[in-house]
């Protein structure tokens, strides 16, 4: 990854965390002092490197893993804010990335009963739950939104 793209990536993540939501290309361009087209081009390169995920419809940020730019089944209370995570793995990842304790809220995909998990000192409070990963690792990026 070239230094300008690394800077763009770090700025995008920093704005995501500062604002509690995905920044637009215009916001990043304004902060970086570059053209919006430059941000879109850089984001495309980062997308191709799996450093973030763009929405195919809008070319805006869809995922800055572990954060989701769109509402999902995994909500995380951490660092004084609610976040959306892309999946159960990323829900714990939000706490890991922010390096804080948190609370994960979701529901069982089978019975739809609410599931709440406290995360304290990097460990789940309810240790009875199970995590199921449907897609083998070699295929995670074939369709990362489905994965």
């Amino acid at each position, binding site marked *: 990854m070239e230094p300008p793209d690394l800077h763009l990536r770090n700025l995008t993540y920093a704005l995501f965390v500062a604002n509690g939501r995905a920044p637009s290309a215009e916001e990043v361009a304004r902060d970086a002092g570059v053209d919006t087209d430059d941000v879109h081009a850089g984001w495309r390169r980062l997308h191709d490197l799996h450093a973030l995920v763009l929405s195919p419809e809008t070319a805006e940020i869809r995922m800055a893993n572990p954060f989701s730019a769109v509402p999902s089944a995994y909500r995380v209370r951490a660092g004084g804010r609610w976040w959306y995570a892309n999946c159960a793995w990323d829900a714990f990842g939000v706490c890991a990335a922010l390096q804080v304790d948190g609370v994960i809220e979701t529901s*069982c995909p089978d019975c739809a009963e609410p599931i709440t998990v406290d995360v304290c000192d990097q460990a789940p409070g309810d240790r009875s739950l*199970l*995590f199921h990963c449907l897609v083998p690792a070699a295929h995670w990026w074939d369709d990362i939104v489905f994965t």
Partner: protein
Amino acid sequence: MNLFRSEEHIERWLGDRPGGATITVAKLSDLAHAWWDDRLSPRWRPRGRDESQAILDRLGLAGDFWRLA
């Protein structure tokens, strides 16, 4: 990549579909912290496939399912 209340819930949710891999939520938390804890660091650098595989291996996530390629 979902959380479930028990193995019974996973089996029912899968139905006729082939299952993937199931691990405890404690293992998942360990994995997430190993995988994501540098994500916001200014020293973050892209991780190579071998480095990512080493994280999975270190946590005992072995077998073809957990091979990145």
